């Protein structure tokens, strides 16, 4: 910010008293962080996350793949962990809804997305789990099946499923709906846990603002 006489603050040395300078710098730091996160104001938390769920997630978050040199115009990369909002569920299936804030008007490019969920199984049993990806029909009518995956679950604990392009497209559209349907006779006794420390979540690696490379043929 330049002063009335056109001098740039950095050239003319500190002209403010220390307290005003501190206020100015803190305000600058806030604005800098919000601008670079493409936020107009600081977020107000709609649904607090339990410390147990946070601890579970922090064990899974990892930095960018090592040795990846930052390319020019790579755009900003984010890792996003979205906890499931449990939708309509019954003993035969569990519906999970995930919401993603759009980072900028330019939209975001999902690099990779995977579902993490915790299953409690009776000892020495295996379970086939069907994971359905549902997307809104034309004109946002009710949800239709986009694709489904079968997953063999052979022990209690966390299980990961890498999500394909249909699910990634739904994440880019800011709302992803999944259905977990246990198959077979064990179905009744296997439980998909949703408690504080075992909430299912989607981990997505997202890029925003990178110039889309035109592939030359």
């Amino acid at each position, binding site marked *: 910010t330049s002063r009335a006489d056109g001098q740039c603050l*950095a*050239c003319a040395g500190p002209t403010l008293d220390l307290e005003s300078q501190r206020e100015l710098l803190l305000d600058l730091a*806030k604005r*800098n962080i919000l601008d670079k996160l493409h936020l107009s104001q*600081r*977020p107000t938390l709609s649904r607090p996350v339990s410390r147990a769920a946070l601890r579970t997630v922090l064990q899974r978050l990892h930095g960018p793949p090592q040795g990846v040199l930052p390319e020019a115009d790579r755009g*900003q*990369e984010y890792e996003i*962990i*979205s906890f499931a909002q449990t939708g309509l569920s019954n003993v035969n299936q569990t519906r999970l809804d995930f919401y993603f804030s759009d980072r900028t008007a330019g939209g975001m490019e999902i690099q990779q997305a995977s579902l993490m969920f915790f299953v409690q199984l009776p000892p020495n049993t295996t379970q086939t789990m069907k994971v359905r990806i549902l997307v809104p029909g034309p004109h946002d009518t009710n949800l239709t099946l986009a694709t489904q995956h079968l997953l063999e679950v052979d022990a209690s604990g966390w299980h990961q499923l890498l999500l394909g392009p249909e699910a990634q497209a739904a994440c880019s559209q800011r709302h992803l709906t999944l259905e977990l349907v246990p198959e077979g006779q064990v179905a009744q006794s296997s439980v998909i846990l949703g408690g504080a420390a075992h909430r299912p979540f989607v981990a997505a690696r997202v890029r925003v603002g990178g110039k889309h490379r035109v592939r030359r043929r």
Partner: protein
Amino acid sequence: GINCQGGSRMCCRQEFFVDFREIGWHDWIIQPEGYAMNFCTGQCPLHVAGMPGIAASFHTTVFNLLKANTAAGATGGGSCCVPTTRRPLSLLYYDRDSNIVKTDIPDMVVETCGCS
């Protein structure tokens, strides 16, 4: 780069820590607890324009120009004390949907200052 100490009036880097609890942002920023933003301050008289560090050849050029044009004739533009190297800040925070987001924000920490 040079860190500001005592009454130094020449261009230097002033350390400045932003504590997220102090600005009331500790509820949505999970990690870190704050960050060293730092800033550049101090004078850049014409005989040190383009200094220090990697701009040495540029500094020599400016210096020769000054000698050739004598200080009086030098343009009034002056040289400013600005960041010459900056580091990214790794942030873990909640977005408005209470998703947990991790990202590296570029150019957030001023490492060194110099005269433009």
